């Protein structure tokens, strides 16, 4: 043993001395040109358009590799990308409502093919059930068989209101869509470009290498147009097969068909390791959107499910942008990191509390007979008392602020803080009834209302029971929300319970045995009509059986054209109804945190998808 150590010591000393001469000082770290973005879920496909693959990571990669007519910024504004093209409503004879999209001249795909109106036609194939049926591609509404283009685009307002096929202008640069009625959300229903010549090359010609001749590529595009116009079932089926299946790969290397990755975004897919990462490199031909800063040559999406692991990877400089919904401890740990900036913000989701009024509009089981049933004065008073005593401010202060110090209580069912019209709605809806004073004064007011019907009501009297339905028990924050609410409501004599059913809770939303429910809505777009389903008497998301003709009337207005001022007035009126009927209160927006390498400039997290990556062209070192 001794001998071995001596030998090793000698050998090591000798080697050390020898290697001294050959030592090279480590080079200074080269200027960084890579941004590594953390995603909590792994990529499953390079086509985020099918019902199976419409997942955040897939669509984020799609956002960097493809640029269309508009995008959301970090303040929920829809920005027109005029570099790519312009769009607007036009008068077309014989059409109720028409929108024209024009691609700017000179835009090119990454293989050099010019982009024009033909590239906008695929969107119609992906969203019109009528086209799918007419072209023999299958009925998307059929519950047993997938359509040939297995698209998640069917079934929306585009599908139900589009008239005929899009009209291509004679110079092929514009496409005009005709709807059978005014579409309040027309701006987010429009087409996006797709490199249709590559679909033709892969699906019909079975090519697996880029086509070098530009004349051939233009011929392929013309072939697509011919197939589209003649509804060539065989060709479209072959292309649908490619579109639906061939993009569902998670490994990309030199052997992967490069035709799959022709795009017009600032970056293009270079390689991918299944379950680990996707690497994108700069698109040398990019001219379809805002100019790149030029300092970033590579963007890598790295998939890390565990948030602590992601935070440590940030500390070790393995990732540059971390985003997630950490706990208060997690935020403290991030704040302690050197060379890391953090921005507190909100995600798209907001928590809300609904009170049951009647049988659910949506297959409700039995008639609701609990304390809140109906529109009688007693039910309204008890609902008001319940909402008054519900400790929203306390929940925000104790559970949300430690993560996002800017968090506030949300006071509108239609708009979120910061959105145009929110402040007006809060002022005009009379929601101050539920926000004025402190928890103590609000509880006192609630107790007074309850005493009208339960004279013996006092703290701990359990005068009546409210059965509250809420999310999965594994969610600690929701468990804490429930605990806080249970205590505070106990102070006004309400016995808050939760008799089972929290597992698979969403399946119980329509059950009348629950008097109230809290969970989150997660709108992914800003839509004029998106909330209608929540409060229309027959709305698919009206689980609480709210039935008000006044409300239906206001919501009906939202389906027609409204000026911004009219819109604000509508929302205020609707919120006012909800307050006076004591139906629902929003609680808070889910907090989100973005932490990033402080050397990286212009990271601006956004609440709507594509969240952090929305302004990737501005990133710079």
């Amino acid at each position, binding site marked *: *043993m*001794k001998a071995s*150590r*001596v*030998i*090793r010591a*000698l*050998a*090591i*000393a*000798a080697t*050390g*001395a*020898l*290697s*001294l001469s050959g*030592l*090279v*000082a*480590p080079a200074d*770290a*080269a200027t*960084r*040109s890579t941004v590594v973005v953390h995603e909590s879920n792994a990529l499953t496909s390079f086509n985020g358009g099918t019902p*199976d*693959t419409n997942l955040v990571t897939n669509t984020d990669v799609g956002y960097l590799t493809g640029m269309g007519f508009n995008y959301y910024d970090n303040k929920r504004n829809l920005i027109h990308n005029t570099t790519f093209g312009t769009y607007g409503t036009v008068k077309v004879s014989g059409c109720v409502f028409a929108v024209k999209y024009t691609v700017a001249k000179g835009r090119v795909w990454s293989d050099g093919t010019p982009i024009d109106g033909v590239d906008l036609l695929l969107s119609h194939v992906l969203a019109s059930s009528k086209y799918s049926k007419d072209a023999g591609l299958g009925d998307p*509404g059929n*519950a047993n068989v997938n359509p040939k283009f297995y698209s*998640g685009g069917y*079934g929306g*307002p585009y599908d139900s209101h589009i008239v005929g096929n899009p009209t291509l202008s004679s110079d092929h640069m514009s496409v005009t869509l005709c709807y059978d009625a005014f579409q309040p959300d027309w701006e987010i229903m429009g087409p996006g470009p797709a490199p249709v010549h590559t679909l033709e090359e892969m699906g019909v010609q079975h090519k697996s290498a880029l086509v070098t001749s530009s004349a051939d590529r233009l011929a392929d595009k013309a072939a697509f147009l011919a197939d589209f116009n003649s509804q060539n079932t065989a060709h479209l089926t072959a292309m649908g097969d490619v579109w639906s299946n061939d993009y*569902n790969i998670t490994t990309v*290397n030199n052997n992967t068909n490069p035709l799959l990755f022709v795009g017009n975004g600032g970056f293009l897919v270079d*390689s991918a*390791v299944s379950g*680990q990462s996707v*690497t994108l490199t700069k698109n040398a031909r990019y001219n379809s959107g805002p100019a790149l800063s030029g300092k970033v040559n590579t963007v*890598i999406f790295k998939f*890390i*499910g*565990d948030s*602590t*692991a992601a935070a*440590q*990877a940030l500390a*070790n400089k393995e990732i540059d942008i971390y985003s997630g919904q950490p706990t208060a401890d997690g935020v403290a740990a991030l704040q302690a990191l050197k060379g890391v900036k953090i921005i507190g913000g909100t995600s798209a989701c907001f928590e809300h509390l609904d009170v049951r009024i009647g049988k659910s509009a949506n297959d409700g089981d039995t008639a609701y007979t609990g304390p809140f049933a109906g529109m009688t004065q007693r039910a309204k008073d008890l609902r008001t008392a319940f909402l008054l005593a519900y400790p929203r401010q306390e929940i925000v202060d104790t559970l949300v602020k430690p993560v996002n110090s800017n968090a506030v209580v949300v006071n509108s069912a239609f708009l979120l803080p910061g959105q145009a019209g929110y402040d007006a709605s809060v002022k005009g809806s009379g929601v101050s009834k539920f926000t004025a004073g402190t928890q103590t004064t609000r509880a006192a007011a609630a107790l007074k209302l309850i005493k009208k019907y339960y004279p013996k009501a006092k703290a701990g009297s359990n005068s009546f029971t409210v059965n509250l339905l809420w999310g999965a028990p594994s969610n600690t924050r929701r468990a804490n929300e429930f605990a806080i609410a249970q205590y505070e409501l106990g102070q006004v004599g309400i016995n808050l319970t939760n008799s089972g059913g929290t597992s*698979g809770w*969403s399946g119980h*939303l329509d059950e009348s045995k629950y008097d109230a429910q809290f*969970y*989150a*809505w*997660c*709108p992914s777009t800003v839509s004029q009509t*998106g*909330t209608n*389903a*929540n409060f229309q008497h027959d709305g*698919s*998301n009206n689980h609480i059986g709210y039935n008000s003709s006044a409300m239906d009337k206001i919501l009906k207005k939202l389906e027609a054209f409204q000026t911004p001022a009219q819109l604000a007035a509508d929302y205020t009126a609707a919120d006012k109804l909800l307050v006076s009927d004591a139906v629902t209160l929003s609680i808070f927006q889910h907090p989100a945190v973005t932490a990033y390498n402080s050397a990286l400039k212009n990271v601006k997290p956004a609440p709507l998808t594509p969240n952090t990556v929305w302004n990737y062209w501005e990133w710079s070192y």
Partner: protein
Amino acid sequence: MLTYLARRISQLIVILLGSSFLVFNLEAIAGDPLEELKTSSDPRKAQMIIDLTRKLDLNTPPPIRYFKWLGGIFTGHWGVTRDGQSVVAEISQAIPTTVRLVLAATIIAILVGIAIGVVTALRQYSRFDYAVTFISFLFFSLPIFWVAVLLKQFFSIGFNDWLADPQVTTPWLIFFGLLAGVFWAGVIGGDLKRVLTIGSVAGVSTVAILWALSVTKWFGSPTLGIFFVLGMGAGLALLTTVASTGLGNKPSRNTAIAMVVLGGVLYYPLQALFAFLKTNYNGWIVVGLAFGAIGVGALTGFFFAKEDRKPVMRTGAIVAFLVGLLILLDRVMQEWSPYVNSDFVSNRPIPTLGQSNDELVAQLDSHPNFWMGTLDSLLHIILPTIALTLISFAGYVRYTRGNLLEVLNQDYIRTARAKGLSERTVIMRHAFRNSLIPLTTLMAWDFAGILGGAIITESVFSWVGMGTLFRRAIVAFDLNLLMGVFLITSTLAVLANLASDLLYSALDPRIRVGNGN
């Protein structure tokens, strides 16, 4: 024997069917896959619910759906996940990852655990025994996610920070010196004088080595070179000879020395071969080299020994293999400086997570470099392996220690000693071998558990293996995926149970399998 096997296997099938039926139905009742969609405010909500219901066959009641699923299993259709991926594809992608992650850790845990177990048994009730028992149980009882967080903090983030100016400061020199001194003194043992001598020699030499490495800035660009390879090879040859035959066995000693010398002679020619392998990597060449080394070692032993050839050949084979390993390691280490200084590593070589460096992977695609790829993989696997090993070797330590102590107290050991066998022969050949028999049960279980994955470890280190699939399946109520993973792991578990019973009877002549009559 055959009836026994048939009976056991039919039992296993019943167990598998019953347990899968239970798990399937419990999971189907436990959660609603449509949960997320039901609270969606998307205008296409109805269509989306139709799509998912169709895909997952949710309109069929779970018990009936189970039999549909079971029918699919026999025809190779394991269903699709929620995300529309084939369960078979997902699992066949996850298995290699999991094996890569867990196999090394399991083998290291077994080797280290048994080695430490043997030493603690031989030094029973010494301070070393108590210290090792304490430490192994400390790690055993720590939660892995916490161990992983600490490992990342110190050995990844901390180590990478330290690499910016890799100096071993005096307090650390003293600390490592003391640690090495106490450790080796404890392992070798003896009277006070011996303990002090060994402790101080080990401590001082450790300090000297670290000091030399630190002053020469070796840590900044660590390489082995032929001198390190030969020095460490000689050390390993010495250790192997001591454990295998004892230093007194002259042919064995000479074989070991010959293997080290041969390693030195072949060092430069091998570099040429490695340069070829760099771009034309073929795994079989490396495997062939390993077998070649073992063969050469055994052959040399055969010629050096005139009688009792087996132990000599064994020594030769082991030393040759180890020296070969050192030469390979040396080649991989030659990539260190270019790797660490590259743009994509930026002087932070130890990653906290992942299976490989993303940019390197993209680069290797067009510029293959087998050795740098290997270095990258090794650096990525090192922390999870340490974490898994730390929490699992305690079991082996305790089992080995207990078994060895029990065997050492048996009459035949006394007889062996009485007939004048050397202590080494008594322990290694008569006691140690027999003490390993009960360990086979444990090993069979551990190897079956490998494919179950390491649920938390995989998630913390962001590896997508079986554990990740299992976790994802439970979180998303992804029944087909869950059942696919469950089927693989439960089948292996029951087979391991059977295998350990059979192995036991093969190894221990006192045990016979039969129908129990």
